[in-house]
């Protein structure tokens, strides 16, 4: 198989075959290599963007597209209706398509008159389907039979399919289907995070062992099937080997076989993969999973073994190729017969090569190029040239998130403010621990590992009563849950809680906004969270795995790094506002997907507060001054939170302000309502409504946040398309439509390029993941998305399934990417990274960062740069 396994792997395998026999097969190693086809999946409560193809970037986007089409019948190029809709909206410039087609034809070297080839391709690019009458037509079939000697050479082998699937396709017996159902059941019972009162027996012993102990009693298998597994090996890897042997999978194909099985339920396997990375105890969870799955497969298909050899069904049957020429090439059967043999062959080759994937690829690239073109034009025409520095009253640092852009735009318009962009965790690799909570959240991008822990604390007596209030609030829902799980009390529960729930039902239904507001306020009033301090100073405590707080040098290091990253090292305004962001939504299992992705799917407020507090430390400022970053004495850092659903700025940390800072603060307070209203108005016009505008946009936004029946509380990062790394002045005058991640960068202050490579390795990668997650959830909503919100059920507290049971769904729900079942909202474009720096910088970057180079070369993202003279270069 050329596509799925790397060459290296094959060489290894062959070596192994020569020197060793099956018992020594390194199965764990094979599983590890096979796991590249899936991506780890986080629990939904900390939903963070995840690139479903993260292990596959070594191959080109097109190769992966072909492989997925062949093995799972999943299309990852946009389908015709998406393309036509974009075309109708004027988002695709057809000149680009034409040029791309010519370029494609140039490299084909097919001996056909250019005009004929072009005409054929152009017609095929209309993307209409071949009429089924033509595909079924007898004459075409006869002709195809006659020409069978001319078949284009097909070098690619079919991807390997699980034997159960082959059997299902051969005999119609639903084995693969049943296998999936069995595995879904075992996975959800094992992975459950305390939703069930009775958890899976023997779960502590691990997935495979628990399964092995229980499978002998499983009534969903027949007696004979159970008997087959009676003396199954104790250990997962032996069992896996035994099953593979029983299925007679040749050693050279084992990895492919495992990959095929992993892809059957990519969500559950992704969750297994994630769990296996969490603790050493469960590190071989994926092997255990495969052992269970393939052992079950063997049990189910045993009576049918050995299967008939997987017949190489004619992948390149000539019928569609001939039909294509008849349909798009304006030919008749007679015309065909008149052609010379070489010409027939050339035509068939062209039709074969210019297949659907190529056609869609050309369209996608034209769409992407059109966007690039429009972006360039806008940025060039509106560049802010005047360099006059007005006295800025305040500087804001926002997350790079695309939702910051409209808000920043409105804010800048409202006053002499400057805004900066950097990743919303502000470079702090911390775990955060809120007051009174045992749970620590890793508040940083999932690609990084936390290194410190920062806790909230407050005086003992306040903490204690706060704890008691918190516990009481919790114990109510806990008691409810416990009563539900007890036979006798559960019978009384509806009668006791019914009236209260009814009250909530009516309130949430008829006055959703006030009801939600009141419930929130009541909760806050009851909890009365005391004001807190942060544990910024290093505490020595042997019990925790991570150090708590920072030592002196670390504080300086992180402040310096953050200021450099956001491009704020001189000309400090009296007030600097560090803004994290979070979203508000009700009854939304995907709430975390709308929060800050750089903070691991949670609010960025905590990190903002930590950074602002660090920046205010006199000691830190002193040391920074010696390094040339001098922060004036009356400059104060404060922290706020941008609530994206409401377009509000909430203060979360305001220390004692200097006079100048106080003045700036007052000014911000007076202009904020207008900024917020403008931003809301812009955003609301994008959200689907019932045909009339609310008179009070602010109240409407609150309704979106509080309404328990709202499936689109906000659009999140839908329609994201580009990532601009450069000075804000480059884009300040542009309306980027909330589609662009903005990261500050000044190449002149980055002589050795480290800053740039850090931006690329960190924030840009996070943005690429977000982008590809949206992309995947849009082009293949059934496989990479999460399906319709209305038919989801939360399972095990971990994620959602569709309907009765399904794969653990990993991506964004259908409603988050479409406006309606008929209209897609997100534009599936691969992220365009724009770097404002001279070309040498980009060349150096590509040289030094092979991962990034690979992404660019293999088209997992696109790259452009704009040099100091204002010239653009598009690298891919």
């Amino acid at each position, binding site marked *: 198989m050329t596509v799925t396994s790397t060459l290296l792997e094959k060489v290894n395998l062959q070596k192994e075959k020569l020197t060793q026999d099956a018992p020594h097969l390194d199965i764990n190693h094979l599983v590890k290599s096979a796991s590249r086809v899936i991506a780890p999946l986080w629990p939904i409560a900390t939903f963070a963007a995840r690139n479903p193809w993260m292990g596959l970037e070594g191959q080109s986007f097109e190769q992966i597209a072909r492989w997925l089409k062949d093995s799972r019948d999943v299309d990852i190029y946009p389908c015709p209706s998406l393309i036509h809709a974009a075309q109708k909206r004027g988002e695709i410039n057809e000149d680009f398509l034409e040029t791309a087609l010519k370029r494609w034809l140039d490299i084909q070297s097919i001996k056909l008159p250019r005009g004929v080839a072009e005409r054929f391709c152009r017609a095929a690019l209309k993307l209409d389907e071949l009429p089924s009458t033509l595909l079924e037509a007898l004459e075409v079939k006869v002709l195809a039979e006659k020409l069978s000697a001319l078949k284009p050479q097909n070098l690619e082998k079919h991807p390997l399919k699980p034997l159960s699937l082959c059997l299902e396709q051969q005999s119609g017996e639903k084995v693969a289907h049943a296998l999936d159902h069995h595995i879904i059941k075992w996975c959800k*019972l094992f992975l459950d995070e305390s939703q069930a009162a009775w958890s899976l027996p023997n779960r502590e012993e691990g997935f495979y062992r628990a399964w092995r102990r229980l499978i002998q009693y499983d009534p969903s298998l027949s007696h004979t099937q159970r008997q087959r597994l009676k003396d199954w090996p104790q250990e997962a890897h032996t069992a896996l080997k035994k099953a593979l042997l029983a299925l007679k999978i040749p050693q050279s194909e084992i990895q492919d076989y495992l990959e095929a099985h992993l892809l059957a339920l990519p969500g559950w396997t992704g969750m297994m993969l994630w769990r296996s990375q969490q603790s050493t105890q469960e590190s071989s969870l994926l092997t255990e999973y495969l052992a269970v799955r393939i052992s079950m497969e063997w049990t189910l298909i045993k009576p049918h073994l050995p299967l008939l050899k997987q017949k190489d069904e004619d992948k390149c049957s000539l019928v569609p190729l001939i039909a294509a020429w008849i349909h798009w090439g304006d030919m008749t059967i007679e015309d065909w017969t008149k052609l010379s043999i070489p010409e027939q062959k050339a035509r068939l080759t062209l039709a074969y090569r210019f297949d659907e994937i190529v056609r869609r690829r050309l369209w996608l690239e034209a769409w992407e190029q059109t966007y690039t073109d429009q972006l360039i034009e806008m940025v060039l025409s509106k560049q802010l040239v005047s360099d006059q520095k007005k006295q800025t009253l305040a500087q804001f640092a926002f997350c790079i998130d695309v939702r910051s852009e409209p808000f920043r735009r409105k804010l800048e318009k409202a006053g002499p403010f400057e805004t900066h962009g950097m990743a919303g965790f502000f470079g702090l690799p911390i775990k955060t621990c809120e007051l009174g909570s045992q749970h620590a959240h890793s508040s940083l991008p999932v690609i990084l590992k936390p290194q410190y822990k920062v806790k909230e604390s407050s005086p003992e007596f306040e903490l204690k009563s706060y704890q008691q209030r918190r516990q009481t609030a919790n114990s109510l829902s*806990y008691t409810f849950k416990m009563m539900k799980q007890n036979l006798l009390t559960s019978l009384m529960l509806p*009668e006791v809680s019914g009236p209260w729930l009814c009250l909530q039902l009516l309130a949430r239904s008829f006055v959703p906004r006030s009801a939600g507001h009141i419930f929130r306020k009541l909760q806050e009033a009851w909890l009365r969270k005391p004001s807190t301090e942060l544990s910024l100073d290093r505490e020595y405590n042997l019990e925790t795995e991570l150090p708590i707080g920072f030592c002196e040098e670390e504080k300086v290091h992180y402040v310096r790094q953050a200021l450099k990253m956001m491009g704020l090292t001189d000309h400090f305004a009296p007030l600097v506002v560090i803004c994290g962001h979070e979203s508000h939504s009700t009854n939304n299992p995907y709430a975390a997907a709308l929060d800050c992705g750089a903070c691991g799917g949670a609010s960025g407020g905590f990190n903002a507060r930590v950074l602002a507090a660090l920046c205010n430390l006199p000691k830190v400022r002193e040391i920074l001054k010696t390094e040339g970053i001098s922060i004036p004495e009356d400059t104060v850092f404060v922290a706020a939170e941008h609530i994206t659903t409401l377009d509000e700025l909430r203060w979360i940390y305001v220390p004692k302000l200097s006079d100048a800072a106080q003045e700036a603060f007052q000014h911000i307070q007076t202009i904020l309502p207008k900024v917020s209203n403008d931003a809301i108005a812009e955003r609301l016009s994008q959200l689907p409504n019932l045909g009339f505008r609310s008179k009070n946009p602010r109240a409407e936004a609150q309704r979106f946040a509080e309404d328990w029946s709202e499936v689109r509380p906000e659009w999140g990062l839908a329609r994201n398309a580009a990532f601009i790394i450069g000075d804000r002045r480059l884009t300040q005058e542009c309306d980027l439509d909330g589609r662009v991640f903005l990261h500050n960068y000044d190449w002149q202050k980055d002589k050795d390029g480290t800053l740039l490579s850090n931006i690329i390795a960190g924030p840009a990668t996070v943005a690429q993941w977000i982008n590809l997650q949206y992309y995947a959830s849009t082009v293949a*909503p059934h496989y990479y998305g999460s399906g319709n919100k209305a038919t989801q059920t939360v399972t095990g*507290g971990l994620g959602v399934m569709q309907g009765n*049971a399904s794969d653990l769904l990993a991506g964004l729900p259908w409603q988050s990417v479409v406006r309606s079942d008929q209209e897609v909202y997100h534009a599936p474009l691969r992220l365009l990274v724009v770097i404002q720096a001279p070309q040498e910088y980009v060349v150096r970057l590509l040289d030094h960062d092979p991962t990034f180079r690979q992404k660019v070369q293999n088209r997992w993202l696109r790259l452009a740069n704009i040099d100091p003279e204002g010239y653009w270069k598009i690298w891919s």
Partner: protein
Amino acid sequence: MLVLLDSLPILTAFSVSLAVCVLSAFIFLHPRVPLGFIRLHLGIITLPVLIALLALITTDASTIIGPWRLDPLAWLMVLFVLTIGLVVQRYSVRYFLGDRSYRKYFALLTFTIGAASFAWLSNDLRWLVIWWGITLLGLILLISLNKEWKVARMAAIFSGRLFVFSWLALLVAIIWLSQATGHWQLSLMMAKDSLAQISSWERTGINMLLVLAVVIPAAQWPFQRWLLESVVAPTPVSAVMHAGLVNAGGIMLTRFAPLFSGDLAQIFLIILSSISILLGTGISLVQVDYKRQLVGSTIAQMGFMLIQCALNAYLAAIIHLVLHGLFKATLFLQAGSAVRRYERTSRPIQISSLLWIIVGSALGLLVVIYFWLTAPEMGYQLISALIFGCSLFFAWTQLVAFGYGLIGRIAGFFLLGGAVMVFSIIHAAFFELLHETVYQVVQPPTLVVILVMVILLSGSALGVWLTRSRSSTAFAILYLWLVRLGEPHSDLVESHPNYLAQYLYWGGNRR
């Protein structure tokens, strides 16, 4: 003092308002009508709710007009069903926005709910059968509204078959009953001299058919599968189903009480329902999907409601079915909030907590004895007292005894006190409203009451014992059986929602 309104104008107003609702639903079906019309539609469907409320407040006796019977029970049911319908439609306005079948959802919901409310007003059983049939049909159509989704289609077919079976049982029972008594009007059939005409074997036969007709919608063992598999329905449809359809049996049996009470069929019902309580609870204990847990719980709750009917505690059954309906509808509608972290800091049990627990058990025991003594001759009272005492003890333990610190205990105490107070007020209100309408004369045999007690207690004990011995083979076997019984059939599972690829492929080209 409330002025007693005449029944006829109210009935007319009610019928007209429902007709307007149906008309408005029809108008909305037309693709040219703007989506904003839905707000007007919501306003319109509020009307019958208000009229039903007014009727409920002002009616205190039973009036029969043509095929209709207007009494507090009928109006209560109508109000309940329509309120659920209104709330769910309100919820669906945003929830389904953008759905391919947006308009059809509202039309079907309106028809289904309207038909159900007429069913509970019918005195003429021919009408009842027709309206009830329409309600069932509407629900089937609601389940299968997403026609592209194979799983939904199959679930609808499966449920549909069972519903037809249940409906036929009802039809036969009613025809039989009218043959035996010579009436079609329920109030005339249930009169003493009519009932006297029915021979005892006929009576049992009719009652068995009735039991069959009610256990299927209530998803009782062995007919629980349809409810487990209709988890594929969209959340609001599930809410309607669990709040308004499954509990139809409670109302029907209450209406047929004079016929049903004291019959052998009651024992049969008790057996089915007891098994269902154990099964339903078991399913909700082992399942990890939120909606499936709710289904398990519904099966158990409906079992309890039917047992109440079988013990002639019809009033209790009505209270239970209304409150459970509201409870379950809310839980379904907020199913999206099920992703929650339960943080529970484990603290060692202190001596003081133990003391509080002892107080709690004494309290629970006192309540049991008190309740029982208030009406020792009422068989069901014993069971009710047991469950209530047990719940009180349990809640006391969780809220007060394990309360964290003084604040926790005081707050827990007040919460508990508040809950008990509201509970008593609600029950008193229901009693006041219904005690004249609902039949409550015959007492069940003591042996039967004891049987139910034994089943409930031994079920609980078994549960406790099994949780203690989780590594035993017996537990493993029971666990796997419960999982198996709670799982859908393999044909109703699809690993990925493939119909979405079809939607995407159609784009805007197909409406």
